[in-house]
């Protein structure tokens, strides 16, 4: 039996809109176990990003309970939430979000600096992560000099460089060609198998879906289907 990492119970997320509210997620009950490789699929606006943000403690739910690695998300102070993210969670954003004045190397190094790692260890880990994503030769480039796909790979390297327990990836392959997508997915799969890192994706991409072991379908803020795929 794999250990339970995330537990979501009767969770609802409302966004205030004008005078009223918009319900982006409704009555979600979900559990994620350590070592999962799970995709959240659904049409645009179905609430995928919202769900990932709440799991990653960047946002809080409106109703219900969300527990991540023993932390109740709603009760978390901003400092504790920052600590949880720094130590245990890696984010990959739909829009890369690289820091523009830093080089590729420095971008990937950033989470390690926050962890207070020595510069020697940092260098080793960053070079390793860049190798995973096939960007060793771009270490000194700045984001503005990279293609969209390369930026996405830097963002992925940055999320996995600290070997977090949980990686939350919002459309990680949206800007990658087939070859790169497969390469990245294999890399993540290997991390998942070797280190037991839990991956939760949001995706439209059929290529991603073929790597998944679990597929959760959202529709209008509700869990429509939750199924084991590719033999689990």
């Amino acid at each position, binding site marked *: 039996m794999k250990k339970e990492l995330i537990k979501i119970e009767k969770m609802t997320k409302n966004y205030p809109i004008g005078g009223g509210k918009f319900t982006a997620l409704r009555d979600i009950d979900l559990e994620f176990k350590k070592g999962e490789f799970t995709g959240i699929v659904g049409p645009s606006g179905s609430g995928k990003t919202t769900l990932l943000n709440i799991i990653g403690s960047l946002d809080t739910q409106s109703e219900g309970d969300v527990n991540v690695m023993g932390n109740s998300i709603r009760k978390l102070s901003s400092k504790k939430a920052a600590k949880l*993210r*720094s130590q245990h969670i890696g984010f990959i*954003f739909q829009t890369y*979000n690289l*820091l523009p004045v*830093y080089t590729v190397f*420095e971008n990937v190094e950033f989470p390690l600096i926050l962890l207070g790692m020595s510069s020697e260890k940092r260098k080793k880990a960053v070079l390793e992560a860049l190798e995973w994503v096939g960007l060793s030769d771009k270490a000194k480039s700045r984001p503005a000099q990279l293609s969209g796909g390369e930026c996405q790979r830097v963002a992925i390297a940055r999320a996995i460089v600290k070997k977090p327990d949980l990686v939350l990836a919002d459309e990680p392959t949206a800007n990658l060609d087939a070859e790169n997508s497969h390469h990245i997915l294999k890399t993540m799969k290997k991390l998942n198998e070797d280190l037991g890192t839990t991956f939760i994706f949001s995706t439209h991409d059929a290529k991603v879906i073929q790597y998944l072991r679990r597929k959760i379908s959202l529709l209008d803020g509700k869990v429509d289907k939750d199924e084991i795929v590719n033999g689990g």
Partner: protein
Amino acid sequence: MIFKLAYKNIIGAGFRTWLNIFILSLSYFVIIALQGFYVGWQDDASREMKNWDFAGGQYWQETYDPYDPYTLEDSHAAIPEDLQKLIVEGEAISILFSPATIYPERRMRNIVLKGIDPDQNLVELPTKYLADPDNEINCIIGSGFVDNLNIKEGDYIVLRWRDKNGTYDARDIKVAHVFSTTVLTVESNQIWISLPTLQEMLGLPNEATIITIKDETYNKEFSGWQHKDLDFLLIDLTNMIKAKTIGSSIMYILMLFLAMLAIFDTQVLSIFRRRKEMGTMMAMGMTRPKIIQLFTLEGVLHAVLAILMGAVYGIPLLNHFQKVGMQIGMDAKEWGLSGLNDALYPVYGWKLVVGTIILVLITVTVVSFLPTRKIAKLKPTDALRGKMTK
């Protein structure tokens, strides 16, 4: 770590940032240059005034009041014995004042006649010209006053005075020498002659109005005499320069304001433009106080870089000013400014430089910090979407 990040952010930033750093460096430069100008002026002027007039301090006969010409006639007394000793030793000089009238070109002019020992060398007045060899009365006059009277060296003028009994007498005296000074208190409306001659003319042997002493620390009390130390004697100058400095402080405030604007612009702009960056940092687990620290430090680093940039062009420029002096380009005497030469040599003390740097740094730190409080209200998800809450 924060420091390194802030440094990278600035170094990697664009033209606008460097422009702001340049503006900041200008405000350091202008403040220091202006202050140096006034310090230099004060130093110059007070040195000149000591050299020509005050030496190490003065004793004034108690009725003497430089602002009331009617006291002049009665402001004299016998020199106290201790002071007489100093005079003999060359450590002091006595000066006798008397109201008098001259008639240059047949016009009448009321002046102050001052008697001083021709052999003195305590003050720079060229009193050696006052020795009266061929039974003439020699006098020396400052160049400004001579121009004003429209007379010249070698001319004779009619002098009329009243002795202690109130008897009028008159004589021709010779303008033996015209001296040039920046110190108005030994020039304006006065004529210098030999002390023994004046004492004889007035019938006041061994009396004086003021006694100028060499030793700044000497302050023995004598009845009938008031000791005036240098602080007192230079107060007019100090006040005048202070007034000028306050006038120029409008300039400082302007420069500081400019500095604040430069930083505020950079800070507000970066906080609005870099919300997404902050959101990303939050997502990676950077705490809010750390992010605030980072952005504040970036502002402060602007000021530090401005010091370096200012030093690059400022030190050579200030050195240049110090070497060649600043041309003032006006007749200082016309403005009633004592001790102001044509060229002024500014003085830049470490106190001035360090003080200015600290002043600007504190201002910049506060102005850098203020906009960053917005960060504290920022929700990570909103920041990531590039939105500002509230």
